[in-house]
């Protein structure tokens, strides 16, 4: 018994040496990061929140990789000869599995992932006290611009989509809207952003959207709906509005596609890629801020070569010479093609032409100008809107508003940069009618902008995919369009699991 007492005392002593006592023993705080509840309190939080929305440009579903397949390769400018058959099928209207991640679902997911980030800013930042409220407004305006941008491209791709405008909850089953209502939302976001965004940012913030960027996207949105008058109003900003004189064409066409002359005077909005982080594309430390496009679009043996250019582009460039009777210099910086070395003296990543004689690859944003291989970390900014595009958009708008002759001068200025004679000299027929001008403009846009992810929207806007007759014409340039079913392939199928799991969402027509 004595021992028992001694032991009991010992155990009690043991218990007593232990000093403090946490009140809620089971409440283990997460030591790794702050909680959502603790965030969205300060100006710095708001800035980080909007920055995270920009970071979505670096994700593979969007502008780091796969969206180029939807916009460039699906159009008649490009194609895929990937040995990965399913991947290639998704650039030629052979959509079998609508859940195919790389072809469809990841781009859908990353669109909404970006929207979620914008919505968080829009919902939380208004309640954060700012010393200077104009700063707050600027942050909200950027979020609206970015949300508008992502919904703009979603509308181009899937058309009838759910509009999520509040921060997401796990059990959300958002309502689908018809295209027209999606456009209304996109217009609203861009318009509200436009009112606040500055004409220019200071040096430290160059790369954020300006009034010019908002006007350009607003114009694109109106143009897709053939709201020409409103489009003109938006574009007037560059010529008669506050943006007048702020933009100009770079003398050297190539300056628009290399990392050594980014954010130049021709740039209206560009994605700021960087190679300083060599991490992956997940939401982890050191995440990649580079573009993977160059790795995926580089010719076989250099990159994956999952995407390449249609050869008709080469022929189109060669149809017209410059004022000094030489080849259009844009050909040199737009495409890799068999005669590149013969025509301009350039090798392909230091190699002689080793590919087929009827093949071509996009050269814009490829980094052969300073290296012989590619990787996932391209620092070369993607110019989403260039001033030359604005000029051509303005020309198109004016022409649709029956101001064909005025329109011509904006095309001429784009041509003049590469020493092409004015339309009146080179293509006088184009000035004779609105329709003729529009047809000429289609070519002018290809020569200036091929490989810059505008072609799919162009084809849709021009109605070139509306009838079988017109599709047949496109198919002459790109046989992939032989698979195109009118009324069906004009939009992508919505990922099937989304349709099945959301009662408020229907699959697009004919899928």
């Amino acid at each position, binding site marked *: 018994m004595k*021992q028992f007492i001694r032991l009991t005392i010992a155990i009690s002593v043991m218990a007593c040496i232990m000093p403090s006592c946490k009140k809620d*023993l089971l409440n*283990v705080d997460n030591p*790794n990061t702050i909680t959502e509840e603790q965030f969205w309190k300060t100006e710095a939080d708001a800035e980080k929140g909007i920055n995270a929305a920009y970071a979505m440009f670096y994700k593979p579903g969007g502008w780091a990789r796969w969206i180029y397949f939807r916009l460039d390769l699906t159009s008649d400018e490009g194609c895929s000869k990937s040995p990965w058959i399913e991947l290639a099928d998704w650039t030629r209207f052979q959509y*079998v599995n609508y859940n195919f991640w790389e072809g469809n679902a990841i781009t859908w997911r990353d669109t909404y992932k970006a929207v979620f980030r914008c919505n968080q800013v829009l919902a939380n930042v208004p309640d954060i006290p700012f010393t200077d409220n104009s700063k707050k407004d600027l942050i909200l305006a950027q979020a609206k611009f970015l949300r508008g941008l992502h919904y703009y491209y979603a509308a181009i791709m899937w058309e009838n989509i759910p509009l999520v405008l509040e921060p997401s909850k*796990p059990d959300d089953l958002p309502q689908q809207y018809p295209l027209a209502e999606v456009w209304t939302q996109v217009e609203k976001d861009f318009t509200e952003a436009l009112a606040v965004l500055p004409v220019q940012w200071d040096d430290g*913030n160059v790369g954020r959207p300006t009034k010019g960027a908002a006007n350009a996207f607003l114009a694109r949105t109106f143009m897709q709906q053939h709201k020409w008058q409103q489009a003109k109003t938006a574009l007037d900003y560059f010529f008669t509005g506050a943006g007048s004189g702020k933009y100009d064409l770079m003398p050297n066409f190539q300056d628009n596609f290399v990392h050594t002359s980014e954010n130049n005077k021709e740039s209206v909005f560009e994605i700021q890629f960087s190679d300083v982080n060599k991490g992956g594309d997940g*939401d982890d430390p050191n995440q990649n801020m580079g573009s993977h496009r160059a790795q995926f679009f580089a010719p*076989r043996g250099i990159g994956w070569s999952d995407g390449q250019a249609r050869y008709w582009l080469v022929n189109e460039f060669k149809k017209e010479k410059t004022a000094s009777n030489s080849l259009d210099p844009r050909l040199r910086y737009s495409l890799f093609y068999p005669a590149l070395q013969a025509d301009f003296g350039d090798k392909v990543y230091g190699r002689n032409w080793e590919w087929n004689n009827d093949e071509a690859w996009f050269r814009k944003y490829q980094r052969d100008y300073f290296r012989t291989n590619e990787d996932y970390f391209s620092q070369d900014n993607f110019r989403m809107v260039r001033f030359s595009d604005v000029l051509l958009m303005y020309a198109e708008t004016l022409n649709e508003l029956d101001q064909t002759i005025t329109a011509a001068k904006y095309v001429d200025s784009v041509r003049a940069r590469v020493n092409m004679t004015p339309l009146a000299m080179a293509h006088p027929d184009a000035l004779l009618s609105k329709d003729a001008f529009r047809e000429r403009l289609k070519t002018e846009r290809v020569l200036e902008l091929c490989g810059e992810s505008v072609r799919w929207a162009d084809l849709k806007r021009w109605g070139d995919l509306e009838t079988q007759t017109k599709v047949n014409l496109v198919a002459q340039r790109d046989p992939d369009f032989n698979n195109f079913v009118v009324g069906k392939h004009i939009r992508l199928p919505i990922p099937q699991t989304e349709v099945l799991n*959301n009662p408020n969402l229907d699959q697009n027509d004919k899928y």
Partner: protein
Amino acid sequence: MRKRSFAHTFCCAFASIQQKVYSTASAVLLLIALFFAQLLSAQTSHTVKGKVTNQKGEALEGVSVTVKGATAGTSTDAGGNYTLQVPDAQATLVFSNIGYADMEMSVNGQSTINVQLRQGATDLGEVVVVGYGSQRKKDLTGAIAVVPVEEVTKRQATTIGEAMQGLASGVLVRGGGQPGSEARVEIRGLKNLTGTNPLYVIDGLVTTANRDFNPNDVESIQILKDASAAAIYGSRAANGVIIITTKRGRKGPMKVDFAAKSSIQTTPRYDLAGKDEFVKLNYMAYDNAGVPRQNLNLDVNTDWQDAAFQTGNMQDYNVSFSGGGDNGSYLVSANYFDNKGTVISTGFKRLGLRVNAQGSKGIFSFGENLALTNARADEMSGNPYADVVRLLPTIPIYDAANPGGYGYGSESRARTFGTNPVAIADLEDRTNENFRVRGNIWGELKLRPWLKYRLNLGYETSADNYQYKRKEGNWTLNQAYDPAIYNENRARWQTMLVENTLSFSERFGKHSVNAIAGQTYQRDKYGQVWGTKRNILQNSSSGSYYWVLDQGSEPQTGGYLQEAILLSYLGRVEYNFDDKYLLNGVIRYDGSSRLGRNDQWGTFPSVSAAWRISNEEFFKVKWINDLKIRASHGTLGSSSNLGYWDYLPVINTFSTIAMGTGQNTFPGATQVRLANQDLRWEKLTQTNFGFDATVLDNKLSLTAEYFIAKTTDVLTYMPILMTTGNDGGNPAVNAASLRNTGFEFSATYKGKAKDFNYYITANLTTLKNRVLNLGYGRNDIFTGTTVTKVGSSAAMWYLLETDGLFQTQQEVDNYKNKDGIVIQPAAKPGDIRFVDHNGDGQISNDDKVVLGSPWADFELGLNMGASYKNFDLTMNWFGSFGSTVYNGYRSLVDRFDDNSNYRAGIKPWTPDNTNTDVPRAYYGSTLNSRGDSNRWLESGTFMRLKFISLSYRLPASFVKRIGFANAQVTLSGQNLITITNFGGLDPEFNNSNMFERGVYSFQFPNLKMYSAGLQFGF
């Protein structure tokens, strides 16, 4: 709340134990010191000695000797001798041993009691560890299976889980094979939609029996299957509990045991086309598609399986020293395990040391179990089981023209992105090394003969090191350039356990009561740091790299912490009236830090009862020796499938952007992963009915169980819509309710004819699951190939249905819906005809229907053994019947649209070969090979000889002459015979994605193994 305040008194103490890092250690030391410091006078009690023999008069070792109605007990040493202190001279001793009938002897004041045990079929006398105590097997009221350890240790396996397959009913084991891989163990089917891993309790320490744990150290394994049995582990036990005790020393002089096993392993192989057949088929596919043939390199004929696979081997050496005196015993064991994999550049090595000791002095007893292990796995890069199929026979293994010097796909000669397994094995090296210390120390204080207090302190820690070495060079076509990269992480895992239990055991006439009350506290911690550098320095003359993080450029680092706490109170009462009526009640009250702050606590009660009919006076059925019926009902909880802070929405601070003319980096922060904040306990309510019988003069023993298990509020990472923008994993949610009903039957017959002894055990398990509801108010969850619908089983196949091939153009043209629309206008003869289920005249996603179940109808284990004189033969068969599985392998080799190798002997449809179910070969179109059709479904039924062994005990006279106590040689084989129609590599595969349960996609197969073993002791 009284419980809470009681809780706090304890938990304050124990929380702060680990608040100071070393105070745990000092507390332990204090306790040990206490024990040694005490000089206690021995209690006055009666001592009984004796010897236990079998009918032949041979000494029996390990016979359990207990005092009836009390927990005191011992076991016999190698000479069959025992010594036991009994509380009073009128006690009754119970002698029990596996394979022998129990025997009860009254002490009646004697000090020497020798007994002779009679062999019988039953092992009801066996003592079973049931968690915080033990029970006689015959007194069990819940569903508990005892795995025959002697069968387990005969097998050559890396982990204990892998070695258990087919040895207990209701326990499914899948996986293993890959060096250092850990098998998946599933008890009584799918209880939820995420993890199925049961709880492992090793020597009272809640842990995992992972690859660091040496299966040779095991003394007993019991599997708690139903709620009442497992309830004492409350919230941790929803997936069942596997209780393992490790070997300990016994009284007697030092005993040395040595065991060595050596095995060779071979992998099953695919039957793939050789060069000539491949070329013929590839040309056919291109020709049919009108695509110019690729310029195949006809000078090459590579057998990629020869290149990637090798004969593996395994070596397993164990030595143990054990012994003990009156008041203590010890066991020290050492293990060296080495596995060279069947895939090149893979392997696993383990070095283990265990020290178990215990002692007693008066009313004190204490003991410890300590295991130190270092395990190192050379991990597989890529998946060679898929790569050998994706690569073409016309690709050379080496090609000096490629960076790194290895052959792979080429745009003009071999259009495939298949990975060269030889290249990746060389260029990408991954190793994972863990040094683990696992142990516990316990002290027991016998306050009264009927009252014991026990303190158990457990601690486990591991130092983990992962290394990734990527050399410069390519392994696949058009690969992006990477310089030499080195990534390394170092981590520390710690888990700490403090348990206090008070147990009571007393007998009042015919009433016997055992009770236990206790508290446990467990805290898990993990922390990792990692670093990566690129452009690692290379020695220009030797080509070797300097794999240290000092070298290289572009540094990246990271690290994170994890922590979880579980605090529980438990109680159990066992009541036994006259060995006829048995009643058992358990309650456990658990709190978990992983759950939402308002839902951390849960109460989990259970009751069970049994009636031993055969002990009733009226029961006079002569051929029934023992009959017991039992029933149980209970509730268990679960939260261990959760991550550490799943209930907490957090901000991801890792995004950065470049901005400004200088492209400077700015930080971003946002919520990336959504969270449900109200996560609460998942609850499993289980009702079990069973009976145990031994009949025919104890020759035949039967056990049957029927159970209904209903899981509500299943915690799962249920897929949510992509329109939420959620990333980083689906949020955890209390989503679904599932019901499992099952029947388990086990029968053992033991027979004897002179020197010939034999037994046969059959285990049969049937299991049906049904989804009762799904989270977020949904009625179904779809994945690419399956649907989980309320009211039916989970993960049913949801696919397009095929209906043979079109033989003629006319058949294509005539295949119309009721409105006359041609359903597959683009099809050509030789293409697949799909069923237009919705009749809309086209084949689309809307035509998918449910086409089968991935769940087996029943599973069967057959264990047989026979011994004749010194020879011993054992055989274990395992079979699974009635599942429908998706053969991902065939979906690759039976397609012609893409370049990969083809199945040998495949004959696609041609106008001359129409009697086939293989559609025409057509390069570049996925229509005939689409993954979402039932073309790839197959029967998953198989029966397999898991294990066979023949052993020979060297004659005792010979053994004695060379100075040994015993010696035995064993020859054995694993997975030698498989009977199946499944066309993949291995029908016994494991898919951890619950929604794709039956998808075979090149999982590492079970290997054939031939082993020789030697055991001796002296």
